[in-house]
Structure formats: structure tokens, C-alpha cells
């Protein structure tokens, strides 16, 4: 951890523009496997209302049959707009929610078994949340917040050991050991997110699920947290599942990217391929509508329409009402995800519409 600390003391030299990925990275075995994951919520009215008005049950397919693998030491991102199911997927994968069907496994062990507590892998999986104000107990001192996973999982003996671990972790994320006596409200948003990172690292995890970890932060603070997460990944060999709505952040952080729309992955590809030649019309539109510094005075071609109600998604391909390429088939038959030139794409017309 000491090198990380050093890196964070001398934080401000401009970063050298190194190309990535680093050449030494070899293909690795899948650490996390997600197979046909589905999560359906019952959003029916109370039964008395249903009886009196004669309406049926309603369900919301938050995550509808998604599959992917994350190799060890890599980052896979899920990107999409609000309501696309990316956070629900994250919670299921972290074992915080039970999937309706499908499986999630970590080192070939089902996540339910790990979440139950008996598995030695329990300490390996941690999560970082979006809101650094809501995710830290305001009545606990920082030291206790960070020590909690260590104590709960019995990872250190004796209070001195625990104190040392907490101090190392704080220094590791760019704070100071003395901060363990303070309360969360004494810190800024960026510092709180560092505390959340320290807590996530406390059990020495191998896999961290990050749900919009920088969305609540200002850009300059976001840069600090993203750099910290990358440094930790390099140093500790961490594997990340990264959830974000921000394509630029996703491009910066990931090896592989899955684009989600209404509960499904519509495109999954390594980041180079996806950003160079997006195949799915939704991915293309998402990239075109993203504001950038280069779009000075430009007119974005605004995407027509809005994300439909997930309780009553369109028939066939869920994107068809907004898709400029939609044909009759798209309105009836749901496209399954399939390989097209090195990407996985769920679009009937993927080959035709590639420019």
C-alpha cells in the first residue's frame, strides 16, 4: 500500500500519456461468470385494488437475461440510461439481491452460497456505492466504519492489529491515519468516497462492484477517485464490475463494455471495438448524443423519444420505437445477442447498418 500512498502525496504531476493496455497483461481466466441473469420485480397494485378494479399483476423486468464473464484483473462496465437495469444487475452480482433466475458465480462458486456467509470467498467481494453521503453511517467514526468488515469477517486479531490495518487503508486511499477519529460529516464528497473505497478494501477483496462511484462528484474529484481506483487495480490485481451512465468514464476505466437498454445487454464488446465501431443503433445514438468538449457550438442530433416504461416494454426489440433502422421484423421478433465482427450485438440488422 505504501506506493499508493506515495503516489497520492505527489498527486499533481501531469500524467504521462501512456498508451494502453499495458503489454504485459495476459488473457486471464474468468473470475466472475454471469449466466442468463434475470431479476423481475412485482409492481402490482395492492390486492384489494386489483380485485376492485379488475387489473392483473404487473411485473417489471429490471434485468432480463444478461450473460457475461469478467476475467481476473480486468474491468467490465455496464453502461446505460436510468432505468436500464444496470444497478439492479450490480446488486444481484454482488449478492445483495437474489436473482429471479439465472446464475452468478465467483471462482465457480454460486454467489448465493457466498452471500450466505459460509464460503471463504465472502471477503473477496465488495461494493462501492454512488452516494458517499448515504453509504457511510453518520454516527460512526471513520475508524469504526472501515474496521467493520475486518471485525465482521474476523480478519485481524486484537484491536491493535485492527487499528494498524485501518491506518494503512486510510493512507492507502490518500487520507491520513488521524482521520479515523473523525465522523463522515467532517469530510467532503470526494474524501467520503475515499473512505468508502478504504472500507471496500478492508477485507482485501479480489472483486469490487462499483455502482456509479463518481457520479455524485465534481469532475476534478472524479479524476482523483478514478486514478485511485486504477492504481489500486494495478497494485492489488483487483477485478471491477463498473456501473456508469457516463461513456467517457466507462471508456477510461474498462476493458470490456456492455451497453444496456431496458434490462438487456444490447451490445457487448471490448472497449476499443465498441468505441471505434459501435454496432447497435442504440450504442451509436448514445455515442452521438454524448456532450463533449469538442462539440463547441455543435448541434447534437438529439435522440428522438424517451426510454419506454419498463413495466410495459415495446414488443420485439425494445429499442424499435426510437430506432431509425427499425423494420417490421424488429416490431415482432426480439433479437437475441449474437456475434458480429468481434462484438456481441442484439440487433436483427447489425450487419446491414454498419457504416
Amino acid at each position, binding site marked *: 500500500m505504501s506506493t499508493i500512498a506515495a503516489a497520492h502525496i505527489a*498527486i*499533481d504531476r*501531469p*500524467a*504521462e*500519456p*501512456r*498508451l*494502453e493496455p499495458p503489454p504485459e497483461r495476459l488473457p486471464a481466466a474468468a473470475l466472475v461468470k454471469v449466466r442468463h441473469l434475470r431479476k423481475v420485480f412485482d409492481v402490482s397494485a395492492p390486492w384489494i385494488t386489483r380485485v376492485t378494479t379488475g387489473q392483473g399483476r404487473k411485473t417489471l423486468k429490471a434485468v432480463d437475461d444478461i450473460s457475461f464473464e469478467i476475467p481476473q484483473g480486468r474491468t467490465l462496465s455496464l453502461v446505460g*440510461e*436510468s432505468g436500464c437495469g444496470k444497478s439492479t444487475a450490480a446488486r444481484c452480482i454482488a449478492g445483495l439481491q437474489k436473482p429471479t433466475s439465472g446464475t452468478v458465480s465467483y471462482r465457480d462458486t454460486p454467489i448465493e452460497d457466498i452471500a450466505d456467509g459460509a464460503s471463504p470467498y465472502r471477503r473477496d467481494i465488495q461494493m462501492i456505492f454512488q452516494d458517499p453521503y448515504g453509504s457511510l453511517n453518520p454516527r460512526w467514526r471513520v475508524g469504526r466504519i472501515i474496521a467493520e468488515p475486518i471485525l465482521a469477517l474476523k480478519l485481524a486479531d486484537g484491536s491493535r492489529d485492527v487499528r494498524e490495518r485501518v491506518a494503512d487503508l486510510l493512507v492507502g486511499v490518500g487520507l491520513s491515519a488521524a482521520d479515523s477519529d473523525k465522523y463522515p460529516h467532517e469530510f*467532503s*464528497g*470526494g*474524501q467520503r468516497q475515499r473512505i468508502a473505497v478504504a472500507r471496500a478494501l478492508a477485507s482485501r477483496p479480489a472483486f469490487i462492484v462499483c455502482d456509479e462511484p463518481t457520479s455524485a462528484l*465534481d*469532475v*476534478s*474529484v*472524479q*479524476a*482523483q477517485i*478514478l*486514478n485511485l481506483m*486504477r*492504481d489500486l487495480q494495478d497494485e492489488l490485481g483487483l477485478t471491477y464490475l463498473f456501473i456508469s*451512465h*457516463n*461513456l*467517457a*468514464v466507462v*471508456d*477510461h476505466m474498462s476493458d470490456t463494455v456492455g451497453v444496456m437498454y431496458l434490462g438487456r445487454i444490447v451490445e457487448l464488446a471490448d472497449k476499443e471495438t465498441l*468505441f471505434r465501431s459501435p454496432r447497435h443503433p442504440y450504442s451509436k*445514438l*448514445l*455515442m452521438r*448524443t*454524448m*456532450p*463533449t*468538449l*469538442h*462539440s*463547441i*457550438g*455543435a*448541434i*447534437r*442530433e*438529439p*435522440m*428522438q423519444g*424517451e*426510454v419506454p416504461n419498463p413495466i410495459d416494454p415495446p414488443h420485439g426489440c425494445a429499442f424499435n420505437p426510437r430506432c431509425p433502422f427499425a423494420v417490421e421484423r424488429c416490431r415482432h421478433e426480439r433479437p437475441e445477442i449474437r456475434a458480429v465482427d468481434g462484438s456481441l450485438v442484439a440487433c436483427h440488422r447489425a450487419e446491414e447498418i454498419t457504416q
Partner: protein
Amino acid sequence: MLPLVTSAASASAAPERAAPLVEVKGLQVALNTESGAIPVVRDVSFEIMPGEILGVVGESGAGKSMMGTALTGLIDPPLAIVGGEIHCNGRRIDNLPPEDLRKVRGAEIATIFQDPLTSLNPVFTIGRQLVETIEEHTELKGQAARQEAISLMAQVGIPAPEARLANYPHEFSGGMRQRVVIALALAGRPRLIVADEPTTALDVSIQGQIIALLRDLCQRKGTAVMLITHDMGVIAEAAQRVAVMYAGRIVEIGPVRDVILTPRHPYTRGLMGSIPEVGRRLRRLPQIAGAMPRLDAIPRGCAFSPRCPDVMDICRQERPELKPSAGHRAACWATERGVAA
């Protein structure tokens, strides 16, 4: 559905030197606390031309929203304007009695907030809210006001406007709700709209629609917009000029193209550098060390000096001024002396 006829050329052209619509001179806003007044906006001066979109960018706590609030006259204790002047359309508005201020608000200056739900009353139909606002601020009454409401709904791109007047706010989606808020802001035919993070709560695909709408309205109606946001991408796309705020002051102001492509203040340079961009393959993002100072503990000299990579002795002693001029300028000693580009 949306009139998208604005051309890139006209949008990026420099505003003509006509009479400014809004002139702010030496504005000071303070937060009164038990332990004394803390200045949150410090000696800020700028102008907005008719039909211009002025972007205001900065991090949380930089004072950008407070500045916007001061302009709209919605400032309430414990915040107060403690110095400077605000002129709108040739008339001083910061010292008006409440009744006169109420007329200015809505009729001359309207506001759009981040969360459309806070601007709409959930228990009245959109039609009622629009008609009421129109009747309050214009000479139109009854059926004429209703016609105007329908016309406004159509202008902001709401399909079937006549039918939708009968709907309540919750019956609209997020993007449509923000369009309703914009229609409501336009109801009093204001000359200036202060839009505080109008697209932040919206998805990127909807953001583009709302920005296109704002630009189109400025061009067609000559309405000026003060666009407050933390999103430099939105500013790049929507604004003609941009003011960068840091610790309660404007540290750099100028045409959007100049500020983005050749930023002069080290803070602006740091801010631009730290924004991740698709295709910019950096191992690490350039980052600015430390954090913005608390408003009650602003360092002596230049407030950015403790974090500045180009800091000089004078920066810790004396505060650099933002020289009044129409062009691109920055409050920085290094820029002043031609040390840094």
C-alpha cells in the same frame, strides 16, 4: 417534432456589442451565520447580451448557484446580497421593493431548476399553472391565455399540447416535465432565463433535446440564458461565452471556444484536463491536487494558489483581479505577466 434549424455557424459567432441585457457589477452575496457573515459570491462582474447563452461553470460550493439566485431575486435569509448592483434591461433590480421585484421575476427574469418537480405544483393541472402564469405576467386573459398556453407547449415540443393541458405533472416523463418547466418559464415572455443545472437530472439522450430547445428559443425569441452547470460538455454545446467560478469568484471568462481550447487560468486548465473523454487513452487522468477551500477559509492572495502548479510568490500575497474587458480574460498573475500561455 422539434424545430432544429439552428446552424452551428450562427451559434458560435461572437455576440455583437449591443447594449447588454444584464449588467452585474461587483456583486457580493454573503451567508449569515451565528459566527458572522461568510462571503459566498465575491465581487463578481459580468454582462449578458440579448439572445446570448452565458455558461457558468464551477464545482459544488464555487458560488455559481448563489450567483444565479441573486439574479432572479429569489435570495432568502440567511443569504443576502451585501454589495454591488444588478441591472436588467437598463434598470437596477437588486434594490427593488418586494412587490416590484415580483413583477420583474417571471416577466423579465424566469428560472429553470434542476429538478422539474420542484417547479411544478403537483395538485394543479399543467394547463392551470400555465394559464395562471400567463394571466399574471401578460395582458392575455381567459381563452387568449389558454391559446398562448397551447402555443407554448407546442413551442417546447410537447406532442398533442391541447390534450396535455389537462394532465398533472406526474403524468409527464422526466424530459417532458422539463419541457413543461421551460414552457412555464417562457409564459411571462422573459428577457432572461436563469437555468440552474437544467439537464443534470436527465439522461444524455434527453439532455441533447433540451439543449437544442434552449438554443432554438434564444435564437428565435432573443431570450438570454444564464446556463449554470458543472458539465463542461453541456457548456461547450450550448453557450457562446462561459464564466468559470472558483471559491466565489469568476476566475476566467470568455468565448467558449477560447476558454476550452486555450484556457488561461491554471484552474480552468486543470478542470478541462480532468474530464475523461472517449478515445483519449490516458493511463491516469490529470488531476488537480487537493480540494476547493471552504468558503470561510479562503487563502490569502489567489484562492487557487495552494493547488496551483504555476504558483509564484506574489500569488500568495496579492489577489489577481479579473480585468474588465469584452474578450477572453483570467484572474491570474502568471497570465498577466505572460509567464504561462
